[in-house]
């Protein structure tokens, strides 16, 4: 395609997603369980019902992103 644009940069970021996500497996499982519980129990799912669990997941993920970005910077000095 024609050089770097917002789509190719977004796609590049998305490529890293699985690896970063894998580093937060525990937080992801906790959040997932919270949401999944609404499908079987009596409580209905509504906005921010599992906000606490999601925050934990988001923080873990953001940390993983910044860790990988700093890794990239040190490696790209080749």
């Amino acid at each position, binding site marked *: 395609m024609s050089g770097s644009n917002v789509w190719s940069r977004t796609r590049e970021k*998305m490529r890293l*997603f*699985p690896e970063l*996500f894998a580093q937060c497996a525990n*937080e*992801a*499982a906790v*959040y*997932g*369980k919270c*949401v*999944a519980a*609404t*499908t079987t129990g009596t409580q209905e*799912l*509504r*906005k*921010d*019902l*599992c906000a606490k669990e*999601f925050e934990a*997941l*988001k923080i873990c*993920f953001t940390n993983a992103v910044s860790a990988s970005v700093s890794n990239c910077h040190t490696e790209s000095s080749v």
Partner: protein
Amino acid sequence: MSILTLRSLSGISQNRRMNVFSREMKQRQKDWAAQLQDSQQYDYLRQEVGSRVADRAAGPTFHTEVVERFCLTDVSQQSLRRMRPSEIPTHCVLADEEFLPFKENTFDLVVSSLALHWINDLPGALRQIHQVLKPDGVFIGAMVGGETLYELRCSLQLAETEREGGFSPHISPYTAVTDLGNLLGQAGFNMLTVDIDDIQVHYPGIMEVMTDLQGMGESNCAWNRKSLLHRDTILAAAAIYKEMYGSEDGSIPATFEILYMIGWKPHESQAKPAKRGSATASFGDLSKTGRPSGTDQP
């Protein structure tokens, strides 16, 4: 009087014309997917379904003694260019499946594999297929149905509800297997056969599912699709998908429910249901049949 006539004319074309999908968008998506460097790696589903359709048609291969000529149509020019040459003379036609550019009674066999689920006017398309078939011709089709990608659909739905307070459809609507028989019958097909196959593909994660769907040219092109998926929602959906559907080895399954259909264009040679009252034996006689004597039971 003339107003009444007009009304009845529009009534013939089945009430309002359904317009669920943007055909132009679908063409662009297919063109994009076909020109990818490694586009063959996304072909696995199409190949698997294609071989199952071919089995139903004539066994694993079409031979030149049986088939005189192929006519291939696709809405995407790039997809047509990707077609491998075969020993059977093949005609490539750039056409929209909703507007088949062929005369009536042209074909002995029409095959459609994984294309009908993006058609707006499915009853109309089936009628057109019926028209271009010769009498005693057969239509064999495979399309994705009802339960396809339910894991992805549910994960996105739950994630969007929890994160954004509501959800919009990301998976396109599918035909239910119960409707398919009616649709084929209304289009004029005889001797219908409809059956379902579930293909489950395992992926490392939700991103791979979505990337592969894109690579197959199967991204959503419904008019009501939301073009943006928030990063938080993707993260949430990934977690939910894994938790609710994940397997022990860490992979996640994606279900493709494939509906296969076979229908024949009517012809006098085809067997018809027997007339009422023409039975020559009674079901009651079945109880009178005795076991053969002197045979060894295995």
